[in-house]
């Protein structure tokens, strides 16, 4: 793609991102899904007996949960990674090693376990899903920052008499934005998967709200194939779309 040479790198990255087929399809799918959720909520009210509106309602609940848990997980992961990069040395290495050890575990499976251990306290689900997503975010954050901190343009800025604060605010943070967005984004599909998995095992969301996972679990328990299709499809497609956008963001961050 040929962009004018005076295109700011961020719009340029957006144009390249949307030129990647999977990422563009993922974005379109997410936009369509959000649109459908808003419409469904406005037009259909709460309770209907049709499988599709019911699935859409479940998806709205699941996505809200994934968004909140993902945001929390991304926040924890970013803080963890930032701390590891800022501390460096032995302390920084310990933080990274802990994150690496945890990220290697199938933490999504541990979320229902945490629910079980807490005596099915459903309020535990959100922090548990957030914590499950955080180590991978922390690793990606620390790796991105470690690479950036060695960047020659920071040395050049120091050579030109920039203070530590100026280097941080004018050069390091703006350049870290895209890699950190890519790192944080990965918390969303993880949180959604955690909710789906827990719900399917019967450990649904607090307050008796039925997310996609719960809908899938209930349909399986009823042996209701038609009732299974819509929530399973929605969950699968949403996970795929989040993943595709995340891959695109990562590819842009690594450029």
């Amino acid at each position, binding site marked *: 793609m040929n962009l004018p*040479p*005076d295109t700011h790198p*961020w719009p340029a990255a957006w144009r390249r991102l949307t030129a990647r087929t999977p990422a563009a399809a993922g974005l379109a799918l997410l936009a369509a899904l959000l649109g459908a959720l808003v419409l469904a909520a406005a037009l259909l009210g709460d309770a209907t007996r049709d499988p599709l509106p019911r699935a859409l309602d479940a998806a709205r609940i699941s996505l809200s949960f994934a968004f909140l848990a993902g945001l929390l997980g991304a926040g924890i992961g970013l803080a963890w990674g930032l701390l590891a990069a800022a501390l460096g040395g032995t302390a920084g290495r310990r933080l990274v090693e802990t994150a690496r050890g945890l990220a290697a575990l199938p933490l999504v499976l541990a979320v229902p376990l945490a629910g079980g251990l807490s005596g099915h306290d459903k309020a535990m689900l959100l922090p548990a899903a957030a914590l499950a997503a955080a180590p991978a975010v922390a690793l990606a954050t620390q790796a991105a920052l470690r690479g950036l901190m060695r960047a020659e*343009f920071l040395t050049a800025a*120091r*050579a*030109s008499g*920039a203070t530590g604060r100026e280097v941080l605010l004018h050069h390091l943070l703006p*350049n870290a934005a895209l890699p950190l967005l890519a790192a944080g984004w990965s918390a969303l599909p993880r949180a959604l998967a955690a909710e789906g998995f827990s719900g399917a095992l019967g450990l649904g969301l607090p307050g008796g709200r039925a997310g996609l996972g719960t809908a899938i679990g209930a349909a399986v328990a009823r042996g209701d194939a038609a009732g299974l299709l819509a929530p399973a499809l929605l969950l699968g497609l949403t996970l795929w779309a989040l993943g595709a956008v995340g891959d695109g963001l990562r590819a842009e961050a690594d450029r």
Partner: protein
Amino acid sequence: MSGGGLPGDAARAGAVLELRGLSLHDGERFYVEKASLRLEAGEVLAVTGDPGAGKSLLLRALAGLTPAGLRREGHARVSGRAALAVANPALAPELPLEHQFAELLSATAGLDPEAARVRAAAALDRMGAPSPAKLLDLPPRALTDALRWRAALALAMAGGPALLLADAPGAALDPTVRAELLARLAGWAREAGVALLLAGRPEDGVDGPADRVLALERGRLGPPAPAPAVAHAAQHPSGPPVLSARDLSVAFPLGDGRVLTAVEGVSFGVARGETLALLGETGSGKAVLARALARLAPVSGGRVTWMAQDLARAGDEMRRDIQLLFPHPAAALDPLMTVGAQLTQLLKRLRPDIPAGRRPAQIGRALERAGLPAATGGRYPGALTPEEAARAGLARALVTEPRLLIGDEPAGTLSGAAREAFLARLLRLQEEEGVSLVLATQDAGTGLRVAHRALVLAGGRVVEAADAAVLADGARHPYSRALVAAARGERPGLLPGEAQGRQEAGCPVRARCPSARGACAEAMPPLEEVAPGHWVACHGPEPGQI
């Protein structure tokens, strides 16, 4: 050992490779156009060309690996097997070398693993790899770049090809290490009667050991254009030093109480308008020394003065006088800011005396002096070519109107004519404005050509210091002589091995020095004046005769 342990038939006669009107194109662009060429057994041919000239495509096509989407027309004949050696994919990174040799030799020569191991060890030995038997148990991932190249070339040799094609062999290695590697390869090819084709950029040294050189330019293969007018240092200025270093040491704290000393006991002076070259291999300390002069590396001992002022105590105003040219100019520019914005920021910080209204004119002038149109100020670094990025780096260094420029391989990312043009511009600016220059480079040829004086560094110490002209023709230290020989494409005369960093005691070159003796391991030889202004640090009986 001789070539006897390896296949290859010196009696093989006639052309091994013959091209008549060979073209490679994708329907739109001709990468190679009507190339004709004859290569005999035992002949060594170098094909040079700028990056992207199509050298790699040509080599792949000759090895029968024409990339998909590329069409081949004309006549190409290879009598016998062709082997291709390339930088990375030639070796599987995780598989021990022994298996890779065994696989190839069982397929090409029907050898059993035992016989394959013997032949592999012979080929590795021939390529100057130390302890071949041990090396065979290791995967390429565990090897240094130099050893990986020795292994890749040995693998290509061992299969007994009639034609060996090597794409940019050792291009990223130190010139000394690379020249030794290429001389070995060429020596083997001549002895074994193998036709050898070496491809690389003009500065990759592939022409050194070659019998013939052809250039690939805009798809055309032909004799190389007469060398472009190369830049030379202007007359040696005289005068008191403006920059001087006394017993300078640079050490980095390692965090656990230990320190890593990168430069030790270096002294020199640079006059106004003078160019000093810092020559040496990777790890010699030349780049660290350059950065210490720009106050980007911690000085742990000695003293540097600029205009009789102690650099360590100087304030920021000295930064406007001393500017650095970075080895990767594109990476030294913030990708999120336009070139102009970065120059403006620099002016704001270092030239508060220039009012905001006059900044654009000042920036325009700096860009123009660096050879860039004023519109470059509006562009982002990601949109610059390597040549433009190098010039943007120069413009940034010039915008504060410095009096000393420190270059750390400032033309390192450029090739051929672009490289020469950049150096010529730098020297012209120096001559016109009387700027002093300190240039750190591993390319002794360029360094000695553009500088008035030179320091040769090894393991963080100066091993020889003299006027550039004296060093070019009469270097006395074995290591300096190796650097000069490698730059000329000659065999460097050091034993095979790798560039080494600092040594605790003794001469830093002793592991590769053919004249090393007992005393060399015990103490670093002192710098002694062997002729007026010519200093050498060597325990050798008569430096120069060794």
